[in-house]
């Protein structure tokens, strides 16, 4: 599956969804839709969020799985929270 670009390759501004297509009847919905908050994260950040859920929020277990130290994983989470707050404010 192709990776959805989040930022404009020309000016780096945030991209919006302009068209949605139904696979079964080919109905098209055209407009300007903002990407959901989680979709605006990078692939690595989205994977981190998924792992966070997968390990029931246990940073210690995540650190073991990722081969990173606990404070490193906690720092990634803190930075992610900060980024999500900034994105939420922008939206």
């Amino acid at each position, binding site marked *: 599956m192709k990776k959805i670009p989040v930022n404009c390759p020309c000016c780096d501004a945030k991209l919006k969804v302009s068209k949605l297509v139904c696979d079964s009847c080919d109905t098209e919905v055209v407009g300007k839709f903002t990407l959901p908050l989680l979709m605006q994260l990078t692939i690595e950040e989205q994977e981190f969020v998924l792992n966070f859920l997968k390990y029931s929020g246990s940073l210690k277990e995540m*650190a*073991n799985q990722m*081969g*990173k*130290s*606990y*404070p*490193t994983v*906690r*720092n990634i989470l*803190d*930075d992610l929270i900060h980024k999500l707050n900034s994105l939420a404010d922008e939206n």
Partner: protein
Amino acid sequence: MKIKHLFLNPFADFSERTLFLVGIIGFLLSSYLVYLSGQQFNGFMHFYKPEVTVSFIAVLKVHAYMVLAPLILLYIAGGIANNKTRIIDVLNVILIAPFPLYLVLFLSRLINQDKFTSEIDQALKNGDHTLSSIDKGQMVLFGLFGIFVLFLLFYQFYLLVKGMNIAVNNKKIWVSILFVALYFMLDLGIQFYF
């Protein structure tokens, strides 16, 4: 990959338990090395030769102060910068950062630096200001050792900054400089008490 990270940033990849265990082993071994060489700590980066023989317990005790003092200071500073700072992460930084210094201590014993220093001292006392009586090969060896020691001292501060940045989640350069300055100033100040 892990080997590269081991030297560049051990605090990013290794668990706090591993870092703590390695740190404690380093703490004990370096204390024993200082005891064997008949020296005593009087700063995080300083040793001196007391006139009376010191016991291993006495060396351990002073070394423990040399860990506790920066731990308290950097933990408070880290706590101000980020209230999520954990004491175990700061302790691991304090225990691991002086490892390059322990290597200096070991190497200086290995190449018998004390003997060389006393030879230089004696030559100067005898009026040999050009040090012509000192073996040139030895001079080069200790010159290179001096450069290597400077590199290791720099590496010690590099580890301190890397470790504290992870413990505190700091990305600001001025905060890193502050950590180094606090460590350095405490090291200078503590010499008056030991």
